[in-house]
């Protein structure tokens, strides 16, 4: 079509598939790649493939990791009696940045959303229940402060009730409709401190 090079066209197509990249940006990126030294491009493409080859999901907490179990799950310094439940791996990074939490995580892989075809079976819920032990002292539900996160919190709260484990949710200090991932550290710290029992 517009392009005099099929390779460029293919690269633009690839960039344009990425989230929040429009066609114009994709073109700019492709042109930039063209001007990069060959070694840099090779390193870049290797980094892409390495992510696919080396990164997997921790079989305990389902966070992303290169070694299984992940460094958090296998750490002796973490408090193994507290599990913080989040939606996505990015949320783990957000909570870790606050340096306020020393327990373990459980990554659900999303939140309940029938509109997006996500029902309880699509989340790592069974896996969460099978992790609960006699010495599990607290479960913190740190899901996004939106409708889907709140519905998931309610759902898990009900499910966890028979286990008689202290279950808390982070306080809704976060602006409504925002993602945990985008909350700044101070806000998230306050939300963690002000968590309320379910």
């Amino acid at each position: 079509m517009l392009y005099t090079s099929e390779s460029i066209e293919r690269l633009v197509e690839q960039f344009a598939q990425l989230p929040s990249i429009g066609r114009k940006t994709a073109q700019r990126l492709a042109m930039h790649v063209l001007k990069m030294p060959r070694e840099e491009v090779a390193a870049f493409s290797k980094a892409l493939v390495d992510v696919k080859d080396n990164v997997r999901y921790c079989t305990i907490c389902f966070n992303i990791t290169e070694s299984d179990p992940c460094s958090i799950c296998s750490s002796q310094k973490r408090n193994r009696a507290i599990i913080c439940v989040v939606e996505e791996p990015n949320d783990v990074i957000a909570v870790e940045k606050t340096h306020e939490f020393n327990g373990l995580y459980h990554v659900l892989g999303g939140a309940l959303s029938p509109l997006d075809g996500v029902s309880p079976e699509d989340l790592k819920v069974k896996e969460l229940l099978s992790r609960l032990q006699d010495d599990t002292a607290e479960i913190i539900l740190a899901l996004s402060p939106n409708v889907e996160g709140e519905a998931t919190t309610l759902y898990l709260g009900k499910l966890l009730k028979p286990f008689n484990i202290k279950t808390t949710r982070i306080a809704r200090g976060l602006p409504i409709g925002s993602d945990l991932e985008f909350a700044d550290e101070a806000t998230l710290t306050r939300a963690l401190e002000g968590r309320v029992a379910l």
Partner: protein
Amino acid sequence: MKILNARLSNFRNHAETEFNFGSHMNVLLGENGMGKTNTLEALSFLCLTKSFYASTDGTVLQRGKTFFEIESTIQSDTGKELRVRVAYDDQQKKKKFTINSADTEKFSSVIGMFPVVILSPENNSITFGSPADRRKFIDLVISQSSTAYVEDMVEYRRILRQRNKILTEARGKDCAADLLPWNEMLVKYGARIIHKRNMFLQEFAPYIAQTYSHIVDERETPKIEYAPTVKVSGDLSLENIIAALETKLQKKKNDELRFQTTLVGPHRDEIIFSLNGMLLKHYASQGQHKTFLVALKAAEFFYLKERCSDTPVFLLDDVFSELDEQRSGKLFSIVESLGQTFITTTSDKMFGGAEWNSHRRKFIIRNGTVAQEATA
């Protein structure tokens, strides 16, 4: 608040029109189809981020153009001036709302910042139309006076869509387990909305009684009653509403599966208007309907004036032509007592004796331009 000026670009039939408005009354005079209503619609974009009747932003974009823009200076009651700009790009299908050159992230956060009351022929559906039209009316009043209500409404709509999705996907089969968390969400947010609507209608009652008696001499007593989706035993406390919603959800379980949609919740509320104990909908004359509507809108003005940090602006589209001389005279005297108003009309007979100055301006609108401005 006062809208000091506005510039409309590629908005409906306004290619590039500038207004310097009067601080009190602004009369937009012109023949049919000249662009008077379009001007009010642009002001609606400034106050509410959207049109008061067109459903999409693309509709108001001037035919053949790719973007429209409305720019304005708005002065708050405290005298602070804000530059407000709405810009729509049709290629990206993107709208921007900017206050003092800072983009607004959530349009819902603008609602209530620039309070506005609009009285236009579309509003006839408030008294004539379906329950949805009446809900829309009270929702906009409450939204402009309560940010929390706007948030609750946005979230409630999302919950409804999520829940309806489960019901349609189930195709009549049992889906109770999947519905469970969404039932709880529906009840929680639904109860908050019902609670708030009930409080609002109680607060609003004296306002409508007052404005109605201003327009009509005879003893006609207007009444607004709330008929929520559920019968609540006892007072309408949050707990009682929650209990009633839960019971009704349980009762409607099978019907919901059959109709594949949510049948319980504030989206099924009704608001009942009556005059001297007779239902407006069934018994009132055309004139009584109109008078009721005008009284509702005037009441909205006074209600918002007391609750918002700013005095609302009042947009009146083609209102005087539909009332008899006596009632339109009364309405005019009410309008004179309000804050800044914008009135469209095809005849300035009504304003014959008026003096035009920096407080009261007359704009003659012709083919999407200001043909003449009377200020002195």
